[in-house]
Structure formats: structure tokens, C-alpha cells
């Protein structure tokens, strides 16, 4: 038996309710966008998980390389002055 012709992979993003952003829920296979939306609805929203769905062809996503992790994200580790707790405010001044 020959394996079937591959079907496009799509990433599924769901907005759980208004006021929050779409979040990655998983992926589905479908040959076109309309079927991908339908499959995402069936696979990822069987219990009222969402109000809005995005589907994006997985191949369209540009991702950072895990091996670049250090050069991309490490530099911020030492920049503690970007956080409010770096600065001193006397207790008697109260919340700021």
C-alpha cells in the first residue's frame, strides 16, 4: 500500500473570548483554508473553547532557530534596569 499524498498542515489559533488574544491550540491537516477552518472547529472547539479561529499554513510561519537562543535572548538577562524593581523608592512614598 502506498501512503497518501501529503495534505497541507495548518496551525490553529483560537480566541477563547473577546478581550483575550488568539492562542495556539494545535494543528490540523486540510487541503484548503476552508476545510482547515472546518477541521479546526471540529477538533479544537467541541466544548465552547472559542469565539474565533485563525488557521495559518504551518509552512508560512517563520521561526527563530533554537540554536540562536542565547544570542537572541541572553542579552536582556543582564538588563535588570528595564524592570521597575531596579529602582529604589522609599516606603513612605507609598505605591508607585
Amino acid at each position, binding site marked *: *500500500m*502506498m*501512503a*497518501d*499524498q*501529503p*495534505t*497541507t*498542515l495548518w496551525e490553529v489559533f483560537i480566541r477563547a473570548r473577546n478581550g483575550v488574544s488568539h492562542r495556539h491550540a*494545535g*494543528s*490540523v*491537516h*486540510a*487541503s*484548503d483554508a476552508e*476545510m482547515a477552518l472546518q477541521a479546526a472547529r*471540529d*477538533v479544537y472547539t*467541541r*466544548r465552547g473553547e472559542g469565539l474565533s479561529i485563525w488557521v495559518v499554513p504551518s509552512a508560512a510561519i517563520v*521561526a527563530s*532557530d*533554537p540554536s540562536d537562543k542565547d544570542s537572541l535572548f541572553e542579552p536582556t538577562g543582564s538588563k535588570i534596569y528595564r524592570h521597575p524593581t531596579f529602582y529604589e523608592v522609599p516606603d513612605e512614598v507609598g505605591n508607585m
Partner: protein
Amino acid sequence: MYSQALNTSPSVADTSEAATRFQKRIDAEVRIEPNDAMPEAYRRTLIRQISQHAHSEIVGMLPEGNWITRAPSLRRKAALLAKVQDEGGHGLYLYAAAETLGVSREELVDQLLTGRAKYSSIFNYPTLSWADIGTIGWLVDGAAIMNQIPLCRCSYGPYARAMIRICKEESFHQRQGFEIMLTLCRGTVEQKAMAQDALNRWWWPCLMMFGPPDTQSQHSDSSMRWKIKRFTNDSLRQKFVDATVPQGLHLGLTFPDASLRFDEPSGHWEFGEIDWDEFRRVLAGDGPCNRERLSVRRKAHDDGAWVREAAHAWAAKQTVSREAA
């Protein structure tokens, strides 16, 4: 639903520097994500385990799907339909998790249909009466949950995330099964006998779902070390027995095991010898329904071929007309 510890992996000790670094990350409970470096054996073990788990969900739809049209009420029918639909969904979450490791969906489906891949032995037993549907929900899904909860903390991120979703959805499966049993046990003498008969047939195969005893399972070492698996087969089996026996007694049913007794000092239920020859026979393809399950899956796949072809043709046509416009 669940694929038991068919999930074996070679216990090769990789002492390379990369492997040591990987093990350090695992020990520090750092989750591994798809594009991270990982030992080949870790990748292979996960592809095998996750895909067997996915196949089990898909084949697991068959014994219950049989009963949808014969459910005794609309309420039961709606619940069973939702449960079987969930299992289809669970199979799809798991296939997607396996694909992040570099294997294609088509390849995985092909492995199942050609009989090269294994799935849980439990689905090779027949569902003879409506009480079997209750028993499957109560016991098979109960055993599955026992197995799956620790997998929510599996070291591989996509598998753990799929398991969290599955566990959340699956607790209804067990409860609806128990409710069916409760209704039968409170019903007529015949209905209660039906429930007892189903328990008699399913109890031992359910205990086998946890896989061979720890003394015989030489393969779980690396899975434990990699934190793919967090408890041994025997410890999960014992947990299941301890949780389930009081539920069965509440139903007024008798377990088909003369050696079953509560051991006061340890606080555990002791149970009799499991027939491991039967387990191996069913796993090797010689259970009551192995051939039927695979032939039904193959037929469904073949019957759907024209739909897949049409969808591909339609997508190609749309692309052409978009480019022309």
C-alpha cells in the same frame, strides 16, 4: 483511551557529551520542544509511543461506535456519540504531536493500516452487550486516565500539552460509563446480570492495559530516565485496582478474581495472577477482534479515498484560478 506499555525503548547508555547535556536538562525538568536537540533514541521512542497512543484512540472508536445506533435512549446515544467523537479528536491531537518529531501523518496512518504499528490490546476484545459500553467507560477509560495523568508531565512539550487536553476531556468518559453501570445494577435482575457479565469479561484485559510486570519490562529504564514515563506498570496497575474495586463493590458487583482481598497493613487490594500468555497473544495479533478491527479501518480509509482526492483536486483548481485572476 490509551496504548499501554507496548511502548518499549532500547536501553542503550549514550555517554556522549550531547547526551549528558540533554539528560541534565531533563533532570532539571526543562521541557523539550520540537526543534531542540535530542538524542535519536529519545526521538524514536517518542514517535513510537505517541503514534501507538494515537492509533489506540482511532481503533478505540470501533468497539463503541458499534453501539451508537443501538443506544437505549437519546441521552445515552448523544453521550456515546460525543465520546467517540472525542476519541477521534484525541487521535488527531496525538498524531499532530508525533508529527512535530519529523514523521508525516500519511506515514503514520500507513503504519497502522499495514499492521506495522501496534495499538492497545484492549480494543481487540468484542463489545457483546450494552453493558460493555458502560464497562469500557468505567474501566478502560478509568485505566487510561490513571496512565495518562502522569503523561501530562512528560518531558516532551507537545505530548504533554496534548495529554492535558485529553485528560480534561476524558473524565466525562469514565463518569458516563459508571452511570450506565449504576443504572443497570439498579435495574432488573437481567440487567444486573448483564453488568456482571461485562465486568467478568473486561476486568482482566483492563489489568493488562498497564503492560507487562516490572520484573519483565526491561525496556522502561530509558523512558523513566527521560521522564517520558514517571511510574512503573505495576505501580499504576495497583493504583487502578485500589481506586476501582470499591467502585465495583458499590455497584454490588463481584470481581472475577478469587484472590482479590484487601490487605489492611499496606492499605492495598491484592489481586491474582494475570494471564500474560493471553496478553502476548492478543498483542501479537491473535485476539478475538484484531483482524476485524484492521479490516474495518482499512475499509473506512479506502472508502474515503475519493474524498481526499476530490479535496486535493479542488485545492489545486482554486490555486490555478487564483493565479489566473
